[in-house]
C-alpha cells in the first residue's frame, strides 16, 4: 500500500501521475494519429503542455527536497564515511549527535553545510554541481570509501555562523566553558573559529580514521593543517 509521509513524497506521486497521464495521451496520439481538429489540439495541449509542466514543477520541488537529505549526499560513495557515521546511533561524533537532533535529522548535512546568506540556497546548489563534476572527473573510480582519491575539502572555511545559528553564545551553560568565555569576543567576530577546537576529527571521525580520500589513517603532518582549513 502506498504510504505518503511527507510533502516530498506527495509531490513525487503528483509528478508521476501527471507524467503517466501525459505519456498515455502522447502514446494515444502516436498510435491513433487522429486529425488535428480542435478536440485533438486541446487534448495534445494537455499531453504536451499542461501535464509535462505539472510533472516538471512537482518533480523539481521534490528533487530539490530530496537533495537536502543525507541519503542523497551519501549517494556519492566518497561521502559514505561521513554519512554512515552521522547516521550511526552509537556514534559520539558531533555529526552523529547533531543528526540525532530532530532539528537536523535526515537533513543534517545540508543544515550544517548550506550557505545561509541571501541566495545561499542557490550557491549551495551550484556548489553541488561542482561536487558532481569533481566526483565524475576525480573520484568515480576510487575505492569504496574514496581511497586513492584526492583529499576531500570544502570550498571555503567552515564559518562560525553555521554553529551560532543554534549555539547563540548567549546561553549560560555555553558561557561556563572556560575556553568559550575566554574567546567570546573573538568567537563572535569570527576571529576564533569553532572548528579550531571542535575539529574535523571530532565532527567526522570515520572520515579521518579509515584512510580513505587519500588521508592517512592517523593524523600526520600532511593532514594536520589548521582546523580553519580543515576539509570535511
Amino acid at each position, binding site marked *: 500500500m502506498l504510504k505518503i509521509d511527507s510533502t516530498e513524497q506527495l509531490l513525487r506521486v503528483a509528478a508521476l501521475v501527471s507524467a503517466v497521464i501525459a505519456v498515455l495521451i502522447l502514446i494515444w*496520439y502516436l498510435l491513433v494519429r487522429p486529425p488535428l481538429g480542435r478536440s485533438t489540439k486541446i487534448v*495534445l495541449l494537455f*499531453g*504536451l503542455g499542461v501535464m*509535462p509542466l505539472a510533472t516538471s514543477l512537482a518533480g523539481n520541488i521534490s528533487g530539490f527536497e530530496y537533495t537536502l537529505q543525507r541519503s542523497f549526499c551519501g549517494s556519492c560513495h566518497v561521502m559514505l564515511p561521513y554519512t554512515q557515521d552521522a547516521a550511526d546511533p552509537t556514534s559520539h561524533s558531533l555529526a552523529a549527535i547533531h543528526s540525532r537532533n530532530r532539528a537536523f535529522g535526515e537533513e543534517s548535512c545540508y543544515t550544517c553545510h548550506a550557505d545561509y546568506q541571501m541566495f545561499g540556497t542557490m550557491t549551495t546548489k551550484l556548489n553541488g554541481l561542482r561536487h558532481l563534476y569533481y566526483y565524475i572527473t576525480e573520484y568515480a573510480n576510487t575505492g569504496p570509501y574514496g581511497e586513492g582519491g584526492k583529499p576531500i575539502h570544502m570550498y571555503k572555511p567552515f564559518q562560525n555562523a553555521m554553529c551560532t545559528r543554534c549555539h547563540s553564545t548567549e546561553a549560560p551553560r555555553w558561557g561556563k566553558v572556560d575556553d568559550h568565555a575566554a574567546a567570546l569576543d573573538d568567537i563572535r567576530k569570527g576571529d576564533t573559529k569553532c572548528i579550531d577546537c571542535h575539529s574535523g576529527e571530532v565532527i567526522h571521525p570515520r572520515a579521518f580514521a579509515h584512510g580513505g580520500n587519500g588521508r592517512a589513517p592517523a593524523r600526520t603532518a600532511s593532514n594536520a593543517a589548521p582546523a580553519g582549513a580543515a576539509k570535511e
Partner: protein
Amino acid sequence: MFSVTKITIRRLVLISTITTLASLALMIASILAPGPLLLVVAMSLGQFFGTASLVLYLLAIVLDLQGYGEHDEFGSLD
C-alpha cells in the same frame, strides 16, 4: 523557399510528441531513482527538451490557425 504544408505541421506535432516523451522519460527516471547525475540531467536536458517540444507544438498550432497548408496538394488533413 520553405513552404509550410499540413504535412509540415503534422511533422512538427510528431517531433514535439516524441521529444516530450523523451523528456518525460528523463523526469520519471529522476523521480523513481533520484541520483545526482540523473537529477541534474532531468532538470536541465529533460526540461530543455520539454520546453522546446511545447514551443514546437505551439508553433504548429499557430501555423495551423493561420491557415498554412490549407490549399496545398494534400488537401485538408483534419
